[in-house]
């Protein structure tokens, strides 16, 4: 993988990471009063995809995400100010007038559609939008949402219609705290293949994700990307201190340049949160 690309991806991931650690802090201090779904640990999925799709391919896809969507929104260029406002309950600045909360982020600017909070509904809805518009569409789901009956039925239809759609399973192995092995004995990439679409199982490393870029939006494809959730399912807290952290690994590999980026986003994001908190 080209170093410049990897650095660009790290930049987006760094923005997301610092956003989430601030949200963590302010949720802990009860300055954020609504339930929040933090995506720290999983940010390289959206960061890699957004860099490849927006920056390299210059494609602005329709985006359908679910509750754990802050990194998707930020990576694809959503306004950070509006997201902070949404979480802090700033009625005037929130995109949804505080109707959406953490789980239902949307942005007309980046073609990101809101989520209704019922896990997995974004899959059929994203497929319907793609079918009608024929625009490149990216649909995110969790490993648990993927099990919803209506997700499976919809995937079959998308494959049949050969849509320009990319399904991303953010597989953190968890449905709240229930592990995948308790819930099922099958894998999503196999399901995709049995529906006769391309399906792959990979890690959330930018290098692995990049390997599949040649297939993006040519035909339906599903990537089951194994990742790790750093924090609790909802709110501020940690299930374990031993969780593998891709962000630290990438930072180490990329060295000084990454450290600089990390510092830059650390102070920039902190300042933005503080600016909003002063207005409260």
């Amino acid at each position: 993988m080209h170093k410049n690309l990897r650095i660009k991806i790290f930049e987006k991931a760094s923005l997301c990471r610092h956003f989430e650690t601030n949200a963590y802090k302010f949720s802990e201090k009860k300055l954020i009063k609504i339930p929040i779904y933090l995506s720290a640990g999983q940010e390289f999925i959206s960061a890699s995809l957004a860099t490849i799709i927006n920056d390299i391919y210059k494609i602005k896809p329709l985006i359908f995400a679910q509750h754990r969507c802050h990194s998707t929104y930020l990576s694809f260029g959503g306004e950070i100010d509006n997201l902070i406002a949404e979480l802090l309950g700033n009625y005037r600045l929130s995109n949804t007038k505080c109707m959406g909360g953490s789980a239902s982020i949307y942005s007309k600017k980046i073609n990101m559609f809101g989520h209704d909070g019922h896990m997995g509904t974004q899959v059929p809805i994203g497929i319907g939008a793609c079918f009608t518009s024929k625009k490149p569409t990216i649909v995110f789901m969790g490993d648990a949402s993927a099990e919803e009956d209506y997700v499976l039925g919809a995937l079959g239809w998308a494959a049949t219609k050969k849509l320009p759609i990319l399904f991303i399973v953010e597989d953190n192995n968890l449905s709240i705290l229930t592990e995948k092995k308790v819930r099922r004995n099958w894998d999503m990439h196999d399901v995709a293949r049995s529906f006769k679409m391309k399906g792959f199982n990979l890690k959330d490393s930018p290098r692995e994700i990049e390997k599949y870029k040649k297939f993006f939006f040519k035909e339906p494809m599903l990537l089951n990307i194994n990742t790790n959730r750093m924090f609790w399912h909802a709110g501020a807290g940690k299930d374990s201190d031993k969780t593998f952290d891709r962000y630290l690994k990438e930072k180490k590999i990329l060295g000084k340049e990454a450290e600089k980026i990390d510092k830059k986003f650390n102070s920039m994001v902190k300042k933005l949160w503080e600016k909003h908190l002063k207005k409260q």
Partner: protein
Amino acid sequence: MGKTLKETIKEIIRKHLKNKKGKVFGQCLTAVGWVGGTLPELYEKDGMIELSMADVAGGGIVTGSALMKEKPIYVIRYQGFNWYNAPMIVNYAAKSKEIWNTPCPVFVRGIGMEGGIGPVAGSSHHSLYYRMPGLKIVSPMTPNEYKKIYDSFMKDNEVYYVSEHRGSFNNRIELKNDIKGRKDFVIIAISITRFEAIKAKEILEKKGLKIGIINILWIKPLKVSKASIKCIANSKFGALILDDDYVDGISNSIANKLSHLTNKKIFTLGLSDKSAGFHKRVDNLPPNSSQIVKKIISLIRN
């Protein structure tokens, strides 16, 4: 002679597709029967889209289509299937404008039918949609009513649940209210019960009673004219709402609203509170004229 309701619907859908206003989605649309003769013989290239049999997902796919500024029509062959088709229509399409400032208008054609078709698919299930904010519910039974509803939907950007009934598809006649003069009793009728209401009125009037008729086209928001309200308020014994759904839903809610407005007792008669079987003796049909007559006479006597 004017067109039947089914010919009218077919014509509306043909124009909807040919003028590229949007697509029509549903299951087994292009097979024998063309949904009771209400669909033109068009195919996927024309915008007539066959969904798979994944009912819940189907409602979501149509919702996604509506997000793309097309105005999809969603055909649900039996209203009972709505228990599977409705989730994303009511939880997403109906809320999208309010939460994300993104209209998501779907025209849901829920088709009612009953009589020997068993416990789950038959009857009207419009009450299922009633409790969710953000959508409109209508029940057109005549060609003109259907045209008006379609035109209203095309000018609007909301979800419409259109409660149809196969029993009305051959109807060519416009049904009128009768609210002139002081009535002994008023019948307020929804969906297919409107036809039996006319017969019941004739029978009761032969017995010397003056019976008013109010047809409900707009269920949500409820549209009842001031003159109709006045007619109920001036009636001697109040009114009876007829429906093709269970009464614990739309009918009882409307009864409550109208009784507040008119200070009169408003009663309801719909499906019995039981499942429908296949045999005549265990079926669950909408009230027929003799049941309506019996009910009204007993209400007046009491």
